[in-house]
């Protein structure tokens, strides 16, 4: 069923469903200054086509941004994309033939799953716990596929504060996953839009930086650290496949927007972005805390939820076999919305879970939203008792 998204867009609904950054925090004077600067110094270029790979200046900015997480990227292997989503699409288009197997986390980002399904891939979920993909289970899935005579082509991972689980892959597991993938010649697609939004804990090396055999395609995005409205993301690919992906992008849109690439360049090159990301971290950390506190107060005994060290999302799992899909209409009537857990799987798992977003609403609305959600869940539990559920 549709997620009733058009119903959740009304202002009276506290939507914990979306995945929107708090763009209202972007300093207006900076926006004005950047636009004035582009208008006076780069008007013609901003209105012109850009190279398919992106402006060299922006690729250099991307190297700077990636170095913040300890990744050393070669600008010649970086391509600017129209949002991180296009990077997912291009990689899938380049590697996947109908029927090919892609491995994904449990749960996994539905925007990627939709792309995989569009290219008629078969998605297999790898079991995941609080430290990310479980290596033993990854091995088991690989050997099961092997007995079927199948070799998966891609492993899609969001290693930091994953969407939707909020889970971060531990350092030890990062190393093991990179090793397994290298051994199996399984290309890792590392999607890291949230990595710089870490509120606490230690910065962990990217899979891209741990890889020694050019077996990782890295996907980045300015959507969460600058703005999703500018539709600017990137990928860093091993040399052997970089040109293929560039050809793929040429066929799709020739190049990403010159205007917004110049916006990104002005923002990153001036150093303004660091202060902005620091502000975002502080904002989101307070919102996450408000959500975690409210969950502890409102959810029934037996509920579990993740405790993300950054990012946008908390993944909640309810007890007693409740299907969160059965709560959704009542929740929307109560003017609160979430995303049901089975939207993050291709195989019907996740029915007891839901994804809650904490980046978009302020603390007060988050507390009120979770309070309403708690009410809906308690009423549903009561109904279930009267229906004879044990």
């Amino acid at each position, binding site marked *: 069923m549709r997620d009733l998204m058009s119903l959740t867009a009304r202002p009276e609904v506290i939507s914990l469903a979306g995945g929107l950054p708090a763009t209202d925090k972007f300093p207006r004077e900076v926006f004005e200054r950047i636009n004035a600067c582009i208008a006076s110094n780069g008007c013609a270029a901003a209105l012109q086509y850009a190279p398919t790979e992106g402006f060299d200046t922006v690729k250099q900015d991307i190297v700077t941004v990636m170095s913040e997480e300890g990744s050393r990227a070669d600008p010649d292997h970086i391509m600017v994309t129209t949002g991180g989503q296009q990077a997912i699409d291009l990689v899938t288009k380049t590697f996947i033939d109908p029927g090919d197997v892609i491995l994904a986390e449990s749960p996994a980002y539905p925007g990627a799953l939709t792309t995989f399904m569009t290219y008629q891939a078969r998605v297999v979920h790898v079991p995941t716990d609080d430290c990310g993909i479980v290596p033993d289970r990854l091995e088991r899935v690989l050997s099961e596929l092997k007995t079927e005579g199948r070799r998966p082509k891609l492993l899609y991972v969001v290693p930091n504060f994953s969407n939707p689980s909020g889970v971060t892959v531990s350092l030890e597991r990062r190393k093991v996953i990179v090793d397994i993938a290298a051994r199996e010649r399984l290309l890792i697609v590392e999607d890291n839009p949230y990595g710089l939004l870490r509120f606490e804990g230690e910065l962990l090396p990217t899979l891209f930086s741990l890889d020694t055999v050019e077996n990782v395609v890295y996907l980045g995005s300015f959507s969460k650290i600058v703005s999703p409205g500018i539709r600017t993301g990137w990928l860093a690919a091993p040399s052997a496949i970089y040109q293929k992906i560039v050809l793929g992008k040429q066929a799709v849109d020739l190049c990403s927007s010159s205007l917004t690439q110049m916006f990104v360049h002005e923002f990153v090159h001036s150093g303004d972005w660091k202060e902005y990301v620091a502000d975002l971290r502080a904002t989101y950390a307070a919102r996450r805390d408000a959500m975690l506190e409210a969950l502890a107060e409102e959810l029934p005994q037996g509920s579990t939820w993740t405790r993300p060290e950054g990012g946008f999302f908390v993944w909640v799992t309810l007890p007693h076999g409740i299907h969160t899909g059965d709560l959704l209409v009542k929740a*929307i009537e109560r003017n609160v919305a979430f995303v049901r857990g089975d939207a993050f799987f291709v195989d019907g798992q996740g029915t007891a879970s839901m994804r809650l977003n904490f980046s978009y609403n302020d603390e007060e609305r988050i507390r009120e939203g979770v309070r309403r959600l708690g009410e809906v869940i308690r009423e549903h539990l009561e109904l279930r008792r009267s229906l004879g559920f044990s």
Partner: protein
Amino acid sequence: MRQTHVCVLYGGRSVERDVSVATGHRVARALQARGYEVTGIDVDETLVRRLKEMRPDLVFIAVHGRGGEDGTIQELLEILGLKYTGAGVLASLRAIDKVLTKRILQAEGIPTPPFQAFSEAAFHDLGAKDTLEMIVEELGLPLVVKPAAQGSAFGISIVPGFEGLPKALATALSFDGKVLLEKYVSGRELAVSIMGGGKREIETLPIVEAVPRSEHPFYDFDSRYVLGETDFIVPAELDPEVETEVLQVARNTYLALGCSGFGRVDVILDDAGHPWVLELNTIPGLTESSLMPLAAEAAGLSFEDLVQAMVDSAVVADSA
């Protein structure tokens, strides 16, 4: 000459909002093509104020589910003295409630699958769950569990065994405070679109048969609105006497509920060739994958012709 001003109401807060928006936009385009002055209104708390200001010549209701199909908007339009398309208040009230519909059909001797109905309060306050075993014994398995007042197949489950019943009830009750358990009748899914009523002659359009693709257990939400998920056969291939009976049963249903303007009766034709009425929709969907436009097309009516006929039926019903 002044153009006739039609307000098309769509959207609203029901779970069928998206379907309604699609219907509303399509109707508005058709009316514009026919030379009407059209104002589309996504209904919200400003509706009455806007209608009072505009005083349109006619209101075309394309809001599904709660609010639009349950008599609420119709009642407001009566108070405002505005003409509107489709069924009146009373017929809307009867048709939105599948339990009430089925009780009326039973009283009129129109075949509808046997059923039992419960309110949420019956489970909460009166221990209704202890009757479930008796009901399963009476109606047999599988059973169909559905919310009383919901369209587009939201919240419907086919329950193969007793143990699946509580989950199906919980799902249905998440959509409406009243649910029904209905004997499962396997057979062909037919839809009869009807126009007229009131002072106007009743006219049936060609019968549509919906054949869901194999992965859908029945004509569920996705098979209804995702193009290519269902095969439609229009007109349905039926023996002449069966066709006559299906049309008669549908017509009787329309009359029994007191409908006017237009409506769509959903029928199951069982394996022995007997029709069973499931429900009547007073605001049938008019999207590109909806049944009534298909039926109209088979009758030689374009979508614009169909919308025009709907407008005409409203005007006549009111002035007669």
